[in-house]
């Protein structure tokens, strides 16, 4: 059975080409916005999957995002263990649309069964953020 050992959402996931180590920058645990609808321009998911020896090498996965009961998108993904026991899936979402406040849920599915589910509270900021400009003249 394939299991998900780590699943997280971050602003950026970086893979070191020399050491093969992965780093997550700006891990997202909640989302606060001043206006809706909101589109987070770039967000990346990191999933570490582990399989049993009986499992196949290739995986057909689905990533589903939903806000409360509204499905925002469902997208297929392919992953290959390449003969290894564990594999990473680094997925870049080129824009994550969030129509309003609620609970955002990202679910990684394998043939309909849930491998990983992560939830994030999406809320509206109580006060608008206004930029301040200082001058040194």
């Amino acid at each position, binding site marked *: 059975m394939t299991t998900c050992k780590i699943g997280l959402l971050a602003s950026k996931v970086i893979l070191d080409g020399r050491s093969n180590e*992965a780093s997550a920058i700006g891990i*997202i645990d909640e989302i606060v916005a*001043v206006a809706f609808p909101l589109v987070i321009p770039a967000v990346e998911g990191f999933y570490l999957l582990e399989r049993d*020896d009986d499992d196949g090498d290739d995986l057909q996965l689905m990533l589903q995002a939903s806000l409360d009961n509204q499905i*925002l998108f469902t997208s297929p*993904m392919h992953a*290959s263990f*390449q003969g290894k026991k564990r594999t990473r899936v*680094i997925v870049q979402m080129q824009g994550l649309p969030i129509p309003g406040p609620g609970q955002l849920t990202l679910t990684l599915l394998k043939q309909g069964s849930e491998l990983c589910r992560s939830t994030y509270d999406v809320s509206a900021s109580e006060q608008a953020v206004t*930029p301040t400009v200082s001058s040194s003249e």
Partner: protein
Amino acid sequence: MTDISVPPPELLESYLFANTPAYLFRAMTQNKYLEQLKRLPSESLRALIDQIGEIPATISQVVNGYCALVALCLQPATPLEEKSAAVRASKLPWASALFSLAQSRLSVSTNFSTLPIPTVKQTPERNVAAPSKATTTVRIPL
């Protein structure tokens, strides 16, 4: 519980027919006997590996030595130094190649996916306080 001193006959056959370490490695890792060996403490596996050099070994003992070596190399909790020492001390000719194959299996592969921007049918909410021409930001609290 399987007797760990007697490897299953299909592994003996695989050993006799094996012409490359990769073939033997694949045959061993597909056999449930190896899963049982992986649960043994590393000291017991070292003993199975080391006995090959001490006495004239039978085919069964050689196969058991190979299985113990691969099981030891595939144990995630055993330190790399201990695995390397077992490989160096081993009298088995394919020990080094099997160690490399096991190490490559323990490492992690990486898959990259890019999802395009999904379309959203949504009109802006009116009751959310926001300045005109506001830049929408996501704040990540510490």
